């Protein structure tokens, strides 16, 4: 395979500053690109002239695969679309399929889903916080984030037996009911977790180096953000109210109290603050859900073979940890979806990277990329 991309890039003339334009290749194997994103960066000295993300190093053709799997089987693949926040994608697909077929899960299942999705949001944000800090050089918060995440994974594993690819939220309900000891353990975790957030804030939030690296860097203005399709916490950092949980409530999000976290600066620090605050909100949501959890069935009775009506379609969105997670399903009367499209937040969030980094330094690419919370398989699928 020839590297056609590089041959297309012009070597670049002499810039007036007496510096050569310099094409640096970051990735596909690069510590800071969170996997296999490849960035071809045109530099003038250390200043970024252009960032060109090269995608597809993890394009696993999940959408094609889903066209040849039954709806329940597709759920296993949704785990792998966004492995850091697998429950959210599970949920999105399950809800989309339920809507497509006119089903509804029983209330207990809905509450359970909410608990698990919010726990997943915590886990995802923890990993994000660590990775973001790691990108700008602080290595220890990464391990702290993973340490707390392990306890969330324990809860998941206790319930569904897996640590990363759960396959837990199913069409019409959830896979299995929680164990009786789940609720106290979950509460214990929340109590353990509460004092941890201030600790991270001590480590990072007002650390002068952290402030230097993030304040004013990679500013997304609301107009650019909306126009470029930025979504989720990254857009909320610019002060745009875009939380799907508020705007278009699914599950029982309209029955719990929580705030939509907004910051107005639109820089990396604002995005960081939004996510830190979202963790606090998630904790409060989980507490409310645990309070309202009542016994009941966890699954609706499904037809033996799950078929979507012919020529039906649905675009269903939820708020995943990274932003708007949309599932577009087209049914054709068979047990397999005719078309399944995963609209992932990272895909549109990464698009804005080039605009955010132009004129900044090389190191800022890492900070901006980190703050956008990009997960490569979500971009490539």
């Amino acid at each position, binding site marked *: 395979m020839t590297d056609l991309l590089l041959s297309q890039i012009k070597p670049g003339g002499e810039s007036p500053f007496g510096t050569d334009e310099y094409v640096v290749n970051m990735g596909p194997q690069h510590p800071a690109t969170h996997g296999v994103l490849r960035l071809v960066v045109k530099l003038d000295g250390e200043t970024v002239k252009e960032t060109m993300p090269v995608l597809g190093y993890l394009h696993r053709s999940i959408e094609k695969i889903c066209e040849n799997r039954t709806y329940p089987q597709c759920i296993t693949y949704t785990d792998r679309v966004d492995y850091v926040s697998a429950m959210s994608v599970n949920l999105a697909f399950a809800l989309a399929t339920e809507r497509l077929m006119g089903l509804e899960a029983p209330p207990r299942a809905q509450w359970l889903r909410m608990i698990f999705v919010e726990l997943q949001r915590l886990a995802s944000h923890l990993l994000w916080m660590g990775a973001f800090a790691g990108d700008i050089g602080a290595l220890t918060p990464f391990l702290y984030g993973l340490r707390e995440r392990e306890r969330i994974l324990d809860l998941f594993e206790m319930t569904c037996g897996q640590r990363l690819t759960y396959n837990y939220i199913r069409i019409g309900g959830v896979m299995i009911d929680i164990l009786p000891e789940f609720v106290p353990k979950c509460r214990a975790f929340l109590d353990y977790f509460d004092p941890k957030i201030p600790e991270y804030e001590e480590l990072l939030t007002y650390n002068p180096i952290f402030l230097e690296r993030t304040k004013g860097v990679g500013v997304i203005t609301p107009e650019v953000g909306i*126009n470029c399709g930025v979504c989720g916490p990254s857009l909320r950092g610019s002060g745009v109210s875009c939380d799907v949980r508020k705007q278009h409530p699914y599950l029982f999000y309209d029955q719990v109290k929580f705030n939509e976290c907004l910051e107005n600066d639109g820089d990396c620090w604002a995005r960081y603050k939004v996510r830190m605050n979202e963790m606090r909100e998630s904790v409060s949501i989980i507490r409310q859900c645990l309070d309202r959890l009542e016994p009941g069935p966890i699954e609706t009775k499904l037809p033996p073979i799950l078929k979507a009506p012919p020529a039906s*379609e649905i675009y269903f969105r939820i708020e995943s940890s990274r932003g708007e997670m949309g599932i577009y399903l087209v049914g054709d009367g068979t047990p397999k979806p005719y078309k399944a499209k995963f*609209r992932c937040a990272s895909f549109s969030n990464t698009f804005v990277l080039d605009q955010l980094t132009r004129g900044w330094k090389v190191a800022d690419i890492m900070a901006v990329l980190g703050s956008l919370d990009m997960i490569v398989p979500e971009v490539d699928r």
Partner: protein
Amino acid sequence: MTNDELKSKIESDFKDKIQSAVLSAQNEVIVAVKPEAYVALCQELKEKPGYDFQHLSCLTAVDYPKESKITVVCHLWSYRKCHQLTLKLDVDRVNPKAPTLERVWKSTNWFEREVFDLYGVVFEGHSDLRRIMMPEDYTKYPLRKDFTDDGFIIKPN
């Protein structure tokens, strides 16, 4: 504004630009657009106060080999009004061409590149229409229904 109202509003406002507007069983407004009015309609939907579709959620395509068409599907969302709209544009499957929406929503850049990459729909006027997922020298369009390749094994049963 309920979806029903939205549908009738669109029907009355853009009578000459759309082919049909239906409310699906899943309570979604689905509008089939006339190809020549595609960009203009999107521009109006984005800017007209009653609609405010500032956010393009998703742009994708569906391949219908039987009808020999590829449908480009856009999902629009309004942050202010909190309503959703599905736009559909049919293009010819043999020589698929569609106008680009890049000038309306910048975010379509990558979505259209993806559709170009996987379905082969050429978006005219696109600033940077290259393959995005597949290698640059790849020649096929993998998400079309009749796609085959070596090493592409279809799941038995």
